[in-house]
């Protein structure tokens, strides 16, 4: 079998993703099993939800027996950053065959967006193939990782507190965002909102804190816009 240049190019570009997605989805399955849920559901969820941060959030909420609606509600806030990836790819995806286009949209995760955005169409290669491989490889990495988690879990010693991995993972995202944005409020307000909502409504405090954060961000943006207008 001859390997096309598109596949070769994409594979090279996807090596960082290979490490990141493989280990992350393996971690997902391990934490899922650690929470006491059936393993095949972890694989099914990776296949159909295919959404890193969301899948991790779902584990922690399912452990607390949160309602299906509360889980989907919280997930939709996290997934909403994906709403915008497509905009810069509208023209590029339009001429692709229907089924390929559907998969390209479904598989448009952060890493794929990064590769596609930084590698625009060129006449030297078949862009349909390029986009398809760029979307398919990370998907395969994610699925392989989640299956490997099943295998690795059984050889893992039973240690209490391993789920702190998940906490650390979220913490890393917080740090990375702060380093880029220098938005000090992003470190303060979630703590304040969690505290207040926990005192008021301990059963649903996460959802209340998410809504409060959304309102706070919206209002502070409005305030900033007003201030710059007035100056």
């Amino acid at each position, binding site marked *: 079998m001859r390997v096309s240049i598109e596949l070769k190019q994409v594979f090279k570009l996807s090596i960082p993703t290979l490490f990141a997605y493989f280990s992350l989805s393996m971690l997902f399955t391990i934490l899922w099993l650690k929470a006491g849920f059936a393993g095949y559901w972890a694989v099914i969820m990776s296949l159909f939800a295919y959404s890193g941060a969301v899948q991790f959030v779902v584990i922690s909420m399912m452990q607390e027996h949160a309602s299906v609606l509360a889980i989907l509600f919280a997930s939709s806030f996290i997934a909403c950053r*994906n709403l915008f990836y497509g905009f810069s790819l509208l023209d590029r995806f339009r001429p692709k065959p229907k089924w390929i286009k559907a998969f390209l949209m479904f598989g448009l995760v952060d890493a794929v967006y990064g590769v596609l955005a930084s590698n625009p169409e060129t006449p030297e290669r078949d862009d349909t193939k390029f986009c398809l491989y760029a979307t398919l490889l990370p998907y395969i990495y994610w699925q392989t990782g989640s299956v490997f988690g099943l295998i690795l879990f059984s050889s893992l010693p039973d240690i209490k507190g391993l789920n702190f991995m998940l906490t*650390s993972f*979220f913490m*890393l995202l917080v740090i990375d*965002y702060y380093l880029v944005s220098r938005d000090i409020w992003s470190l303060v307000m*979630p*703590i304040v909102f969690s505290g207040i909502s926990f005192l008021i409504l301990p059963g649903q405090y996460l959802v209340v804190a998410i809504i409060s*954060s959304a309102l706070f961000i919206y209002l502070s943006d409005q305030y900033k816009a007003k201030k710059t207008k007035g100056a």
Partner: protein
Amino acid sequence: MHYYTLMIVVGLFLLTCVTRAFPFLFTAKLAGNEKLQVFGKRLAAYIMLLLVIYEITPQAFTVYPFGLPAIIGLIVVILSHLMFHKPLLSMALGTATYIFLNMHYTL
């Protein structure tokens, strides 16, 4: 339990489809709305910290050892990330610290 998990998987599948296909469905209206884009990014960051707290659970702070293993674990994560910038290493160090302290406090 299976029904509960099934509902969540179906819901997440639809959510993934809707959020990722969204720009292709509403091309004209929202294209290049930078404000919304910034809002989405900021909110995601806030939610991540909310989840850190959610993971530890606020109850942990009200009883002995007052969430200290988690706080010290997170400090290790932060320092390691700032120094080495290796995500997996930082997660491993933080978790090891947490497990060690947890064992020590609960014994």
